[in-house]
């Protein structure tokens, strides 16, 4: 009895000592490090997106550390906290990791978590990146100083999809009288584009019917029966995670052809189509990042990171998949913002506010993208202090049964049409929350 008790005490003491030691190590401020707190999700219904995206992000940070010795001599560090895509978990991770020194930026890859963090990052003066997603009106940097929906916000994505459907119909004016069904995920992310589809429908004279699929999206029989009754010309799939393969399979069962379904930016990955099998053949989806491993930066990652056994993806076949490449691209944008900010503030650990300045001066044209080994991986980006999206272009890709093939040029969404709507919304937010509207980058 007493032996057991002693053993227990000893074990407990050892565990506590070890925990204390590691905590002490973590607490010790190390100079010249830039820290990325990662609110990742590797379990739960959206694990495919989480492992791919955060895997790619970590792979790129690893590449920069190994190949270049960091950014300007500053090492990149990170730590993951599991969120399962749940808002309260994301908040917990934020509160846990926000005291770390040298935080560069937050990259939650979840609209729900991003919403919960807007007030918090603004108070803490650290940027929050929502690449390809997020709250649309955060594009207005005059109001949302620390939030960056980089490359494509939900409205641009919607405009891009409608433009593409216009070309498929034989000209945007041919959309008149057509019928489009939008099947959307029952979450803040899924609902974000409801008003913009209504607006574009009025603008171009098509009718739109928007149908919700409850989270996570395993059940869609009744939705597709409604679609079959409605007989639409196109279905836009605004899905996420398991909802997408289920949608494609259910579409096949109800006899709706895959090539008349157009996926949005979070319905465009291998993980969305491979589980659907041949039901996905011919399916088209929008993208801001091209799939494949032929780009030099991906080759570097394979050579420098994976061949050294430091790769983050467990399944090497996923290298070059859409989510993985998006993670790599997210790494490029973060790292370039740090590089640009270092040019102004010096090659040292930057504060969150300095990284925010770097993001507001983030300009990667096609030449710079090529120099980074990312020519063709994405088009370009030009962020300014009042435009936090950055004029990114989109392309369309089609699934041929084994891989994605890009089937369009890089096209521009209708930013002129969208900007006034965004400003109306952001100014309303500024009024509700008493936020001062910035007049210049220095405000």
């Amino acid at each position, binding site marked *: 009895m007493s032996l057991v008790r002693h053993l227990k005490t000893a074990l407990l003491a050892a565990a506590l000592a070890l925990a204390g030691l590691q905590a002490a190590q973590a607490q010790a401020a190390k100079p010249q490090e830039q820290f990325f707190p990662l609110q990742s999700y590797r379990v739960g219904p959206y*694990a495919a997106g989480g492992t791919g995206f955060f895997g790619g992000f970590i792979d790129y940070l690893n590449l920069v550390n190994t190949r270049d010795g960091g950014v300007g001599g500053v090492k990149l560090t990170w730590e993951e906290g599991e969120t399962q895509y749940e808002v309260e978990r994301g908040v*917990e991770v934020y509160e846990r990791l926000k005291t770390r020194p040298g935080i560069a930026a937050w990259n939650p890859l979840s609209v729900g978590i991003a919403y919960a963090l807007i007030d918090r990052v603004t108070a803490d003066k650290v940027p929050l990146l929502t690449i390809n997603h997020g709250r649309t009106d955060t594009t207005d940097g005059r109001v949302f100083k620390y939030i960056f929906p980089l490359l494509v916000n939900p409205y641009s994505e919607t405009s891009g999809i409608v433009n593409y459907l216009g070309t498929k119909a034989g000209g945007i004016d041919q959309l008149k009288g057509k019928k489009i069904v939008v099947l959307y995920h029952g979450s803040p992310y899924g609902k974000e584009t409801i008003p913009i589809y209504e607006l574009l429908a009025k603008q171009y004279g098509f009718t739109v019917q928007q149908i919700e699929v409850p989270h996570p999206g395993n059940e869609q029989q009744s939705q597709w029966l409604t679609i079959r009754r409605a007989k639409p010309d196109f279905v836009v799939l605004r899905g996420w995670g398991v909802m997408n393969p289920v949608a494609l399979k259910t579409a096949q069962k109800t006899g709706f052809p895959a090539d008349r379904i157009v996926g949005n930016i979070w319905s465009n990955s291998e993980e969305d189509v491979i589980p659907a099998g041949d039901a996905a053949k011919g399916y088209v989806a929008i993208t801001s990042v091209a799939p494949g491993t032929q780009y030099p930066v991906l080759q570097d990652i394979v050579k420098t990171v994976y061949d050294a056994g430091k790769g983050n993806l467990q399944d090497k076949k996923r290298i070059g998949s859409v989510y993985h490449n998006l993670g790599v691209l997210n790494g490029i944008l973060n790292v370039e913002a740090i590089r640009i900010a270092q040019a102004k503030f010096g090659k040292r650990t930057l504060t969150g506010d300095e990284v925010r300045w770097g993001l507001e001066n983030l300009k990667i044209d096609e030449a710079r993208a090529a120099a980074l080994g990312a020519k063709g991986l994405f088009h370009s980006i030009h962020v300014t202090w009042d435009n936090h999206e950055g004029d990114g272009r989109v392309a369309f890709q089609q699934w041929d049964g084994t891989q994605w093939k890009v089937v369009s040029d890089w096209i521009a969404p209708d930013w002129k049409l969208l900007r006034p709507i965004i400003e109306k919304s952001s100014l309303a937010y500024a009024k509700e929350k008493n936020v001062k509207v910035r007049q210049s980058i220095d405000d």
Partner: protein
Amino acid sequence: MATPTLQPGTPRTLWPLWATPAIALALAYGVVPLLATDYVFDALLIPFLALSLAAVGLNLLTGYAGQLSLGSAAFMAVGAYAAYNFQLRVEGLPLLAAMALGGVAATVVGVVFGLPSLRLRGFYLAVSTLAAQFFVQWALTKFGWFSNHNPSGVIDAPPIAVAGVAFDAPTGRYLFALTVVAVLTALVWRVTRTPTGHHFIAVRDNELAARVIGVPVLRAKLLAFALSSFVIGVAGVLWGFVYLRTVEPAGFNLDRSFQILFIVIIGGLATLRGAFLGAALIVVFPLLLSRLGSLLLGQWFDSGVLELCQRIALGAIIVGFLIAEPRGLAALWERAVARLQRTRPPPPQGA
């Protein structure tokens, strides 16, 4: 009326009844604010308090009055959205008034969905309260007015301030939540000791017998739904305004209802202490476990593997607890205290 059999939660301890809550409150007000960090406030204590309060509310309904409900998260959502809309649409309405009105709105919805309890019992009632769960989420999604026409259905919480004093720092938000929880818990405790509370227990133990001895059964049932929904509604406001500071309908889904029900069952039915112990186990303990796991093993496993291990561990612990004491953590606590007292020398009277 106050015979011991009607008070299953009364601890058989040597110190007076008020001692444990008094010590807990003294610690919560006096010691915790000095020791805790922002992380402990924002990620552990505030959600713990909000869900404890929701569990107190559900315990009144399920533990005391014996009405099984799976609609708790819906009543939380009603409270949060109603408080938001009162705050938004009534110029100059104080936050506390908005919270109370949110609770009142939850009460109204709670009574409406409590009506089937007049005809249904047990699992049948639980399934009918599911209707509240689905209906509320549907309504909040369907009608943009509830979320002030925010396209994604997400609303931002107003700043926390009472009579011009801001409670926006983590400590302030904690103290605010703590006060609300303490006051409402005290009220609920008081209710359980009134004739109304005894009616609840009588209805729970044997509805027919209760009717025979003259307990107004229908009134007791609806009153239980009303009081419970009010408390749960205010807990929803705390969850949305004080903890997350953003509210979306999907945050109040069936999972949350189950979570609250599990807190009540694991903590111990018909004891208020159980609500707090259960919330500690369901809300705080997994976070501590996952932090300990990532500190000790984080270098060897990725966060996903750790998360799954932590779930297995938590599941095993819950099963272990329930085998050791099916009446919940509160009973376990009581037994531990009783054992502690047995090992001491007997009191002078030799009792």
